[in-house]
Structures are given as C-alpha cells and as structure tokens.
C-alpha cells in the first residue's frame, strides 16, 4: 500500500483498485457520478419508452413474458418495414437470433446486377403435386398470435384481410371456426390441432390447404358436462362436433380423412423442430404429406416454458432441407415457422431451403401501438398491409442486390456467416477465416496441443501394449 502524499488522502486509504489507492472521498465522488448517470439513464428510458407505454405494460403484464414486454415498449414507426421494433435491446444482444448472424453476399460485377425491380417475382407454390397447389404472390403464411392485446378474433379477421391484399394466405389457427375469416381470406389454410373437435367435411372442402399441428397446442379437449342445462341450439351444435382421437397411431387416419374430405388441396403436418428432427421427418414422410411446417424455438407459443424447447428455426430448416434432398423428396414443400420478423429473415430462410414462412404473431402489438386497449380491425388491417407492402418491396430489393429475378433462384450460395458459429451450424462460408479471431486462435492452438498430446499418448500406449501381450502369453 502506498503512503499518503503531501496533501494526503482525506480519511485515509479506503480500498485499493488495481494499482491505485482510492480514498473514501474519491469513492463517494465516483459513487455520486455513477448514481447521477444511472438516474439520468433511467429517466431517459422512462421518458422515452416506459411512460408512453405504461398502459400497455399494465395490460400486457399478465399476458406476455419479459421479452415480449421489451418488444412492446420498443416500437418503431409502422409506416415502413422495420425490425427494430422487434429488436429491443440492440446494445445488449448483438444477435437476436441465429439469422442475424447471417448476411447476404451481394452481386457486384459477377454475377451481374438484377434487371428492373418491378419484374422480380415473389410467387411460390406449396404442394406442387396436389391437384390444386397453393399459389401465393408472397411466400408468407399469416398466423394469428397466441397473445394479443385485443380480441384474438379481431386479430384473426384483420390478418385474413391483410393476407388477401398482400397476396398471401392465412392460417385458421386454434379456436372455433370463423366464417368471416374464411370470407375475407382469398387463401385459407385450415389448421387442425390434435385433440380439438374435428373439422366438418364442409370446412375441409372450403379450405385451400390443410395442416395438422402436432405442436404443444395439441391436447385432448374435455367434453362439456351438464348437457341438460345448455340451450337447445348449443346442444345441437355440440352434437354436431366430432372429437378426433389422439395418439400418433391415429395421425395417418387423420391425414387420410383430410384427403378424403378434399382430395384437391395440399395436406401437411406441422412439427416442432427437435434435436431428433430427421427421425421425425422420417416418420412424417410415411404419411406422404404435401408439405411440412417446421417450427423453431423462436416461435411464440402459449406457454412460458415453450421457449426452452427445440432448436432454432434456421438450423431446423437447414437440416430439414438437407434431409429432404438426400431422400429425393423435393416435391414436399418446406415451411419455416418461428421468429421471422422481416424481409431479410424471410429471404434468408428461403435461401436455406424453405418454400414459404409463417409470419404474424407480432403484428397486432405493433399495429396497436397507439390505441392499445381497443383494437380496430380496419386500422390493424391497413397498417398490417402497409407492413407487408414494404416487406415485399424489401424482398425485391434484396433479390435485386443478389442478382436474382425469382425466389426459386435462391440457394445458400447467396449467404455468408458473420460468425464462425453460424458458419458451422448452417454450413455456409464465414466472412472471416477462423484464424483471424483471437479466441479462435487460442482454441485452435489448444486443440492442436491436445491433438499432439493425444498422439503422444497413443504412441506410448502402443509401445506399452506388446509388452503386456508378451507377458500375458509368457
């Protein structure tokens, strides 16, 4: 410890910080400055984000988790397609998802630049082998959120309207059948959760595509009790419902029931992306689906624990596409679901192997940033369609920058990884050679050292083994 100087340290040396002695006065000064900065920062944050959204926070506190709250309070102007409203803590989380660690490799001199942006097509076809494949002008299937600030029915109806003006399709989602949703949607996808009352034959025939969801929503419904107390019309309606049995063994029957109900449309299965994804795909392929939807861990679901399960969407799509191509099943369309919030995300997933993506759970929050308590379907639909319009434009800009004219020309060669981790996981080239990173250099050196050590040990073991054999035979 150093001695005191001429003026001395008032109140003596209190502590040592590195090589410097710190007195109580200095500690107090530092503390005061730190406190002031903290207070100012808190005040700034409160003024900028919390106070304007306090009511929304109060409403949403019981419904959504912390990440969703951060998303909610960090809303961006809705007039343009933007992802910042869904990337709340940029300074703390450099990469929101694995997709953020992937970037596009732009066309410069070779390949040549794309032609007019107006001529770039975003259309896609799902279930190409079905008699009536689903042709979309935008490869995005809209799904309603599990959590919404207003009525979930209003959100579904608004999404149906948005899907029509965006040239996309809407997924019916869980819950009762909504005639208006079907009426608004130009393309309507019947989603059937196992355990729910089975869709009527009429519903299946009204659908443009049918999907059996094997996700966490699948659960057995409890039949209503005390039928005597129900009104006559409810009894008749209840008698009309036909619950479908559960269990993996019944899935083929369910798919064949859907096909019998409407043999023209694509029929598929939605699964959660797990570490044993390939095994699941092998099981699903036996039922000859027209498409498979793979839901990654970023998907918004109806349980607080849901985020703790599954693998990221990007990895799931990469693995699923590899598996499908290896088994010569490229006629099966692949749909990505989970954590998709921008045009860049959509194009990246399409480049990784998806034919279309599910999108939509975050829309009602962002749309409802001004009138949080009362959702207006018209306003939601209008602002949502603006978002999709901007998203389509951005997708065309990306394709033009990549020198492509059609979504079908996308492949993994247009991507590169910003991190070595993403490069390894997604099988795409990294932006920088592994040797340039300090940590990577250290790890490489460590690995080399271990390999040399292992080789040395193996040689020693090899030298020792004959003696042991000889002694055993002796």
């Amino acid at each position, binding site marked *: 410890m150093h001695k005191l100087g001429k003026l001395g340290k008032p109140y003596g040396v209190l502590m040592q910080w590195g090589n410097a002695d710190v007195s109580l006065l200095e500690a107090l000064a530092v503390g005061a400055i730190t406190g002031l900065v903290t207070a100012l920062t808190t005040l700034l944050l409160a003024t900028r984000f919390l106070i304007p959204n306090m009511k929304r926070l109060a409403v949403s506190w019981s419904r959504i988790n912390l990440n969703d709250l951060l998303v909610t309070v960090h809303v961006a102007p809705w007039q343009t397609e933007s992802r910042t409203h869904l990337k709340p803590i940029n300074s703390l989380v450099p990469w929101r998802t694995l997709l953020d660690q992937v970037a596009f490799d732009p066309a410069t001199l070779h390949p040549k630049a794309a032609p007019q942006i107006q001529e770039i097509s975003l259309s896609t076809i799902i279930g190409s082998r079905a008699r009536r494949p689903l042709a979309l002008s935008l490869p995005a299937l809209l799904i309603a959120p599990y959590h919404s600030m207003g009525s979930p029915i209003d959100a579904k109806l608004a999404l149906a309207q948005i899907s029509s003006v965006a040239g996309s399709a809407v997924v019916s989602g869980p819950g009762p059948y909504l005639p208006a949703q079907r009426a608004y949607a130009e393309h309507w996808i019947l989603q059937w959760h196992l355990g729910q009352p089975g869709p009527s034959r009429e519903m299946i025939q009204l659908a443009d595509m049918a999907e059996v969801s094997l996700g966490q929503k699948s659960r057995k419904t409890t039949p209503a009790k005390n039928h005597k107390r129900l009104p006559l019309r409810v009894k008749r309606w209840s008698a009309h419902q036909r619950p479908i049995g559960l269990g993996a063994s019944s899935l083929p029957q369910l798919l064949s029931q859907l096909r019998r109900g409407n043999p023209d449309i694509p029929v598929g299965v939605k699964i959660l992306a797990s570490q044993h994804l390939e095994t699941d795909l092998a099981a699903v392929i036996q039922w000859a689906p027209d498409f498979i939807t793979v839901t990654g861990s970023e998907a918004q679901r109806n349980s607080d624990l849901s985020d703790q399960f599954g693998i990221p969407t990007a990895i799931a799509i990469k693995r699923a596409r590899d598996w499908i191509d290896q088994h010569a099943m490229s006629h099966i369309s692949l749909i990505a679901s989970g954590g998709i919030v921008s045009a860049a995300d959509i194009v990246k997933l399409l480049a990784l192997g998806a034919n279309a993506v599910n999108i939509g759970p975050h829309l009602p929050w962002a749309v409802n940033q001004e009138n949080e308590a009362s959702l207006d379907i018209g306003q939601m639909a209008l602002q949502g369609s*603006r978002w999709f319009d901007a998203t389509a434009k951005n997708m065309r800009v990306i394709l033009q920058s990549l020198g492509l004219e059609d979504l079908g020309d996308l492949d993994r060669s247009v991507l590169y990884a910003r991190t070595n981790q993403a490069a390894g996981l997604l099988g795409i080239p990294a932006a920088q050679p592994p040797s340039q990173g300090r940590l990577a250099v250290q790890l490489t050196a460590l690995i080399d050292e271990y390999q040399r050590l292992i080789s040395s040990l193996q040689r020693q073991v090899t030298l020792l083994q004959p003696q042991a054999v000889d002694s055993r035979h002796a």
Partner: protein
Amino acid sequence: MHKVVILGARFAGSAVSYWINKLFSQHEITVTVVDQWTVMTYRPSLVMAAAGHPIIADQWHIAMKRRCEKAGQHFVRDSIFRIDPQQQHVYLASHPPLPYDTLFVATGSDQGWRTIPGLGPEHGGVCEDYLARETGDRVQQPFHSLVIAIGPLLQSPADRPHLVGSLDAPGLEVSFLLDAWFRKQRRRDHVSITVVTPAPVPGEFLGPKSQEILATELCKRKINLVTDAHYERVSHSAIYFTDRKPLSSEKMIWVPPYPGSRLARISGIDDGYGWIPVDQYGAHRTWPNIYAVGDISTTALPKIGHMAMLQARTAVHHFYAVQQRKRPSPLRPYVLHVGWLGYGRGLLTLSDWLYGGSHELVHVGISSALAKACFNHAYKIFSGWLPLMP
C-alpha cells in the same frame, strides 16, 4: 310451421327478409337468415373509400343480424357450403344441416380473381371493404400511372340480356372521384388514369344517352378509355391482352370478373355457368321452392342493388301469392342507377333500354348526387328496411 331460409344478408337477402316480415306473420312461418357476416358492408359507398378516403370503408357497416333478430327472425353466422334440393337441407360449415321448406338464395356471385392468370386481390379492388380501404390508402402514395380495370362477366351465352363486363359502374365512379381528388391535391397533372373495360362502351348497362355522357366526361377529364379488352394475364406492374400491347401501370384497381357461384355449382342447381336459372318470378326452373334473387340469378342484369331489390320483391310476393292462392306479378325490370361524377355531381339514369325498351331518363347534376346520398344514408339509418322499398 313453414320453414323459410334466406341465404345471404346483403342487398337482396335484406330485401327478402323485409318483404317476408311485411307479408307474413311470425305465427305462419319461421325465418332463418344465414350469412358469414353479422354486418353488411354497404358496397355503393366503397367507391368513396377507394378514392383516397380509406376511413369510409369502415363507416358503412349495417348490423343485419340485429335487424333480423329485432324482427323475430333467426340469424345464423356461418359459411354456406351446399344446398341439397332433394332433402331440402342447407349444409353449413360449423352448424348442423338446416332444413327448409322454402329457400331464398341471395348469396351473390363469387369474385373470380383467379379466372385471369396472375390476377388477385393484391392488385387492388373496390368491391369489398378491406379492398376499398387498401386502395384508398395506396392512392395516397406518390405514383404516376393508374389503371382501373373491369373484369369480364362469365355468363351463359344463352342469357339475355347479355353483358360483357362484370360491372363497370364502380370503376367509372372511382375514376371520376379520383380525378377530382387528384386535382384537389394538385397531383392530377402527374398521374395518368386509364379505364379498361371488356365492353364496347362505358356504362354498358345504361342507355345510349348515358353512355354518350360518360364517354364525353371521360374525354373532358382526360381519363383514357380502353374498350373491348381481352385479358390474357396480369403481372403486378402490367396488364397483358390477347390482341394488343401490354398496359403498364404502377397502381391498379380492379372490379373482378364475375364467374357465378361456387355454391350453385356444388349444389347442382346452376345453369352450367354458376348462375341459378329462374323464371320471371325468381323461382328456380327445376325446384319451385327455391328462389334465387340478386346477382346469383340469371336474370339479375345488371348486377346492381336496385335490381336485387326488385327481384326480392317479386320473389317474395310470388311466394306469398302461392301460399294465399293468389295471382302473382312477374318481374318488370328496369335500370335505376346514379353514378358519382365527382365535384358533387351525379349521373341519374332511369331506363328500360337494356330490356328492349326505348325509355331513358337521364339527369346530370348536383340533384342526382343528392338523391344518391339521401338513399345511401336512408339505407344505413333503416338498416336496409326502407319505409318505401322499390
């Protein structure tokens, strides 16, 4: 008790429920109205929304469920899937089959977006509230070319009268209203407006005088007109024709093709083209207890609200006459239409020219527009059940 089922609760369905309520007591019949919406969108006002005022699209909703239930009629909100005329059942998507003794079908024609390759509602439209709202929002963005295109009417060649275009009235109204709005915004010199129709003249269903006025007005307002259009396909920036050069456009507004009704086709009660063949009373030619009113029937040309209301009146009065053993009156069709011209003016046409007559009353001016505005507001205030029904 006699079971009456009304399919559809828009112009025609609402008028049917009105006349049934007026002619029959609740002790004689039970009435069930089925529609997929509990509210009716008043479509004649949607042209205003598409002409730069999207908020109007959500201001013209009429609570038909409440209107029907107030009169003691049942209302079922569901998608109508199929009619079984032999079993006399209507099959719905999520409700048990609905039995009927007499059926009024007023579901209208489907919108045949997919009948032209590449065409879809994403190109812009005016015939539904969400399409008009979207169109009204899109025209506020900067652009330089706008095409308002009318789809074809895919009716049976044997139908008389025969029209080529689905309905050009809303397309022409939007063009005039947008012209006035762009001038007010001082944007008109930078935006070219083109109306494309498969018909040989604008206002195909109106008389010669009205057609001449419309053609003159289009020319005077520098709105381009393309007639006799045969569509081949549509991309998101151009319309391709079979017999002429493509027409590029930054924005489009479509009145979609009318291909008839899927419901009629699936039920096997159509004329082979998706329209229900009816006699002069609106009754089905094969199934006399089925009436078709409004756009879905073969004789509802042109497909405008006034014609649907006339048909509803004739059909219900025929049903009443049969019940009461009286002599019914047949449909005497005529066209009554007021179209917006912008600047507070309207074009009123009262004509039987389409049906072989020679009478045509035409008036252009503010009074015509006022008459239309009064009718619109009265229809909304009385929820479709006007004190004086045509």
